[in-house]
């Protein structure tokens, strides 16, 4: 049982790290600000989400797991709000053609 949990942790954290790498590459390589915002939100959602998912079997007890989920939920809410605000600021600066 412990081995299965460890394998799950390793797989989820490796996938999450990959999404962080993909987000960074997207932030550096994509041509304009809106596509870079897209890359950033993918890293936020999938990267951190998968890492929290992978850490859940390693958490000590129910309370530790709940705290991990609370961190994840806060980042989700903040990330979604900030993405909307940044996109709005971008559109305001450059009116649609």
């Amino acid at each position, binding site marked *: 049982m412990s081995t299965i949990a*460890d394998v799950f*942790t*390793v797989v989820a*954290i*490796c996938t*999450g*790290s990959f999404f*962080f*790498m993909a*987000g*960074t590459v997207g*932030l*550096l390589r994509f041509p304009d*600000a809106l596509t*870079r*915002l897209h890359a*950033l939100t993918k*890293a*936020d959602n999938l*990267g*951190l989400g998968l*890492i*929290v998912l992978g*850490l859940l079997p*390693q*958490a*000590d007890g129910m309370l*530790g797991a709940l*705290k*991990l989920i*609370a*961190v994840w939920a*806060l*980042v989700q809410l*903040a*990330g979604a*709000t*900030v993405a909307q*605000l*940044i996109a*709005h*600021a*971008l559109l*305001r*600066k450059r009116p649609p053609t």
Partner: protein
Amino acid sequence: MSEFLLAAAGFILLTVAVGLVRILRGPGNVDRTMAVQLLGTGSIASLLLVAAATGVRGAEDVALGLALLAAFASVAFVNSAAPSEPDNSEPAAGE
């Protein structure tokens, strides 16, 4: 297991640090804010991994605070970027 978690934390921190090149290149302040946002999320992930690897559970609270501060930083940036826009929502149009 803890070695793997520490290695993953270091890898993520290194990756988002490379992303800070976007702060140098710009071109706009929005792009710089996005790089800082990615750094914030990566730091949160790294802190959670370090907390699980070393057993120092206080690092999770630091991650929680960092999540709060990263959100505030971006909201403050958006506010300062466009301070004086005429509010053209529905009630104002009716007057």
